[in-house]
C-alpha cells in the first residue's frame, strides 16, 4: 500500500475525535455495507455459476454433432472411412471419431437391453463430431458428405441446441442483472446512509466551521470515518457471505447444474466488493460533506 494511503487510513487520530463515535446512522452505514455485500456475494456466485453453466452448455452441447451412416454391411467400412476423411478436411471440425461397437451398444442399451448383439443388427455407424469455436458450414458439409458417403446423415442437433443456448444466455443475463441490481442498491444505500449521517451531524460541521476549521479538515474527518465504516461493514459482510457459500448444502455437480460457489481464482472477485463499497462511501461522503459545507459560510 502506498505510504500516502496508509497515512490516510491511520489518520490524524485527534481529528477523528471531532466526529461523534457512533449512533444509528453509523450503525446504518456499517449494516448497509455489510448486508449489501453479503447479498452481492450471492449474486456474484450466481453470476459466476451461470457463466460456468452457459460455458459448459455452449462447449459440450452446442459444439457436438453426429454423423450417422446407414449402409449395407459390406459398404459400412468404406463409407465410414470416406465420411471421416471428409470431416477431417472440413474447416470448423475439430475432431471426428467413429464410435466403437461397445460405445454404440451402451447407447442402445436402454432400448435393446445390454445383451443384444449389436453386431448382428443393421445398426448404423455413429461418428461424433466436435466443432471448433467457429463452427462449420452444415449445408456445405452435407453436400460433400452425400457425394463421398451417400449413406451418411449429418445431425447437427440445431433443433435442440438452440433453446439450451438461449436458456444458458438467459441465465447469464439473470446473474449479471442480479449483480447490477444488488450492487446498485448497495451503492445507493451507502450513499443515503452517509447523507443521513452527515445531516445528523450538521451541528458538528457548523461548530467546526465556526471555530476556523477549513473545509478539507472537516470533510476529511468525516470521509475517513465513513469510508472505514463502509469498508469494515463490507469486509464483515463479505466474510459472512463467503462462509455461507462454503457451507451451502451439497456442493456437487448434478445434472445440468454446476454448484453455486467460487472456483479457484474466482475467489479473487470477493475482495473487490469491500473495495467497491469503500469507494462508494468515499465518493458519497465527500459529496455529502461538500453539500453540507456549501450551505454554511
Amino acid at each position, binding site marked *: 500500500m502506498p505510504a500516502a494511503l496508509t497515512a490516510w487510513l491511520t489518520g490524524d487520530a485527534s481529528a477523528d475525535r471531532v466526529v461523534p463515535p457512533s449512533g444509528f446512522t453509523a450503525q446504518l452505514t456499517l449494516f448497509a455495507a455489510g448486508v449489501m455485500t453479503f447479498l452481492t456475494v450471492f449474486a456474484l456466485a450466481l453470476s459466476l455459476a451461470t457463466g460456468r453453466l452457459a460455458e459448459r452448455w455452449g462447449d459440450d452441447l452446442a459444439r457436438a454433432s453426429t454423423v450417422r451412416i446407414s449402409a449395407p454391411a459390406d459398404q459400412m467400412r468404406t463409407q465410414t472411412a470416406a465420411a471421416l476423411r471428409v470431416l477431417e478436411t472440413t474447416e470448423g471440425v475439430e475432431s471426428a471419431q467413429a464410435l466403437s461397437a461397445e460405445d454404440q451398444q451402451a447407447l442402445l442399451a436402454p432400448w435393446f437391453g445390454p445383451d443384444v448383439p449389436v453386431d448382428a443388427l443393421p445398426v448404423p455407424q455413429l461418428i461424433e463430431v466436435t466443432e471448433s469455436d467457429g463452427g462449420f458450414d452444415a449445408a456445405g458439409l452435407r453436400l460433400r458428405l452425400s457425394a463421398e458417403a451417400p449413406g451418411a446423415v449429418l445431425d447437427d442437433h440445431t433443433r435442440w441446441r438452440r433453446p439450451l443456448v438461449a436458456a444458458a444466455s438467459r441465465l447469464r443475463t439473470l446473474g449479471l442483472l442480479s449483480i447490477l441490481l444488488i450492487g446498485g442498491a448497495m451503492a445507493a444505500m451507502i450513499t443515503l446512509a452517509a447523507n443521513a449521517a452527515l445531516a445528523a451531524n450538521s451541528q458538528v460541521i*457548523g*461548530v*467546526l466551521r465556526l*471555530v*476556523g*476549521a477549513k*473545509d478539507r479538515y472537516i470533510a476529511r474527518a468525516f470521509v475517513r470515518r465513513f469510508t472505514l465504516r463502509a469498508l469494515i461493514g463490507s469486509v464483515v459482510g463479505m466474510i459472512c457471505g463467503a462462509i455461507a457459500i462454503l457451507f451451502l448444502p451439497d456442493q456437487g455437480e448434478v445434472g445440468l447444474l454446476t454448484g453455486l460457489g467460487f472456483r479457484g481464482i474466482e475467489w479473487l472477485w470477493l475482495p473487490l466488493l469491500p473495495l467497491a463499497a469503500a469507494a462508494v462511501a468515499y465518493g458519497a461522503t465527500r459529496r455529502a460533506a461538500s453539500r453540507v459545507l456549501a450551505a454554511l*459560510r
Partner: protein
Amino acid sequence: MIELDNVAYSYGGAELLSDVSLKLAPGSFHFLTGPSGAGKTTFLKLCYGALVPTAGQARIFDQDVREMTRDDIAISRRRIGVVHQDCQFLDHVSMAENVAMPLKVAGRDVAAEQQNLDDLLSWCGLSSRANALPPQLSGGERQRAALARAVILSPDVILADEPTGNVDWEMSQRLIQLLVELNRMGKTVMIASHDLGLIRATKQHVQARVLRISNRRLQLAGADL
C-alpha cells in the same frame, strides 16, 4: 481590522440594516445595543463574514468579504474570536476539549497550551466542570465556555453576542474584566448587550464607545450612556 462601508443587509424582505459604515480600529472597545430584533446579531455576522452584505462593502483584514475564498474565511476566523448568542458545542467531547477546539483545528499543539487553557478555565470558574459534556452544563456555564473558546487562540478581534445574558453579576464582571485585559493587550473588542448596567460599569474601566442600532441605522449613543 474590520471595515464596513455603506453596508446594507436584508434577509429577503425589507432591509434590516441600511447605510452602516464603521471602522474597527485595533485596540478599540465597542458596545453594541439596541432593542431585541434590531439586528445586533446580524451586524456581528456581517463583521465576521458569516453574512455577505446585500449592498455596500465589508472588508475583513483588508480583504473584501465577497472575494474571500472559503479557506480565507476559515483562516480569518482564527483571528476573530466569536461568542455566539446560541452557543453550540461538539456534544460528544468534554467541555475542556471544546474550549481547546480552535487550537486543534488550527493545527496548534494543544499540550503546549495546556497551562493557558487551565488558567482560562479557572478564571471563568469552569475548572470543576472541565470534563463534563456540554449538555451537562448549566446555561451560564455554557456561555462562559463559549467565551473561553473565543479567546483561547488570543485573536486580534473578539466579537461577543450577549456573553453575559445567563450569568450573575459577579461573574459577568469577571468576564468583562477578562475582555478589558485583552483589550489592554491591543485586542479589538465588540460586545453586543442590552444590559445597560453592565455597560455603565464597564465604562469606568475602559474607554468604550457605545453603538446603538435603531431605525435600521447604526448610531453612536450619547454620553448619557
